[in-house]
């Protein structure tokens, strides 16, 4: 086996309670963790920002029904073309959840935090969360291009196909 990319090991998991007729909702599990980044986001923020967390959780559920329309996301939170964007709670409030939007039919949820700085690069926690999603996007793009382990998008653009385990090793 050889390392083919960065050291970020992760797997994608679908969140069936949030997936609906509008969009398929995925999240990311890092390394040997057993909690998704989205669940960790809830755990980390519900104590201090319960109302804001509920707003985002309710928004994700609505996206599952309505679809991941571009207008619901704050775009361009990552590199050009990598699809990294953010969901936020109430208008003019600051809780951010970083995501990768692949189409109206599919989104991957990461983690996030309260944004009290002008740019995420100015906050170590936000920066880490955004960079994880940038790396996830990069590895997914590489696998789609290489058709590694038959990884790709389903014809209806609603699901990933092939192995969802990104362990950085080529078998």
């Amino acid at each position, binding site marked *: 086996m050889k390392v083919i990319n960065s050291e970020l090991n992760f797997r994608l998991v679908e*969140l069936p*309670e*949030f997936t609906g*007729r*509008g969009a398929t909702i995925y999240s990311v599990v890092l390394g040997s963790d*057993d*909690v*998704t980044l*989205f*669940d*960790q*986001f*809830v*755990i980390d923020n*519900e104590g201090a920002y319960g109302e804001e*967390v*509920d*707003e985002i*959780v*309710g*928004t*994700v*559920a*609505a*996206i599952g*029904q*309505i*679809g991941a*329309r571009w*207008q*619901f996301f704050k775009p361009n939170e990552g590199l050009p073309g990598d699809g990294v964007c953010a969901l*936020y*709670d*109430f*208008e003019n409030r600051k809780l951010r959840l970083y995501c990768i939007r692949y189409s109206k039919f599919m989104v991957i949820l990461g983690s996030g935090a309260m944004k009290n700085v002008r740019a995420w690069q100015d906050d170590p926690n936000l920066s880490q969360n955004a960079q994880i999603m940038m790396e996830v996007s990069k590895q997914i793009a590489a696998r789609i291009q290489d058709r590694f382990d038959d990884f790709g998008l389903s014809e209806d653009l609603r699901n990933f196909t092939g192995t969802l385990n990104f362990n950085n090793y080529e078998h």
Partner: protein
Amino acid sequence: MNTNEKRASVRRLQNIDPQKRLAISRRMQLAAYLDECRVAKGWSQKDLAEALGKHPSEISKWLSGTHNFNMETLWLLGDALGVDLVTMSPPERRTGKMVLLMNKTIDKHSEMTLSECSISN
């Protein structure tokens, strides 16, 4: 890590007041409908902003699904987009309350009902 922590998002979702979930869904459906009206008119967001005398960033907020519109803004938007967003239905049918009309271009299957917002364990 126990199961409750593993599925914190599901626990949280199940504990949101169904009325609040419905409000979030309706707000986002209205935003989606407004954007479809904009597209049907062949307008960019900038065009809509200019028609309303607003800054484009304000239009982005309105279309984000996070904005809680007041009636005057809805009348303003409806006039600009050429659609009836707010109307008065006859008292014998809807007890005279104002109702939002957004059933023309949004997929009716995306309408989330109150019962759907109350998910079971």
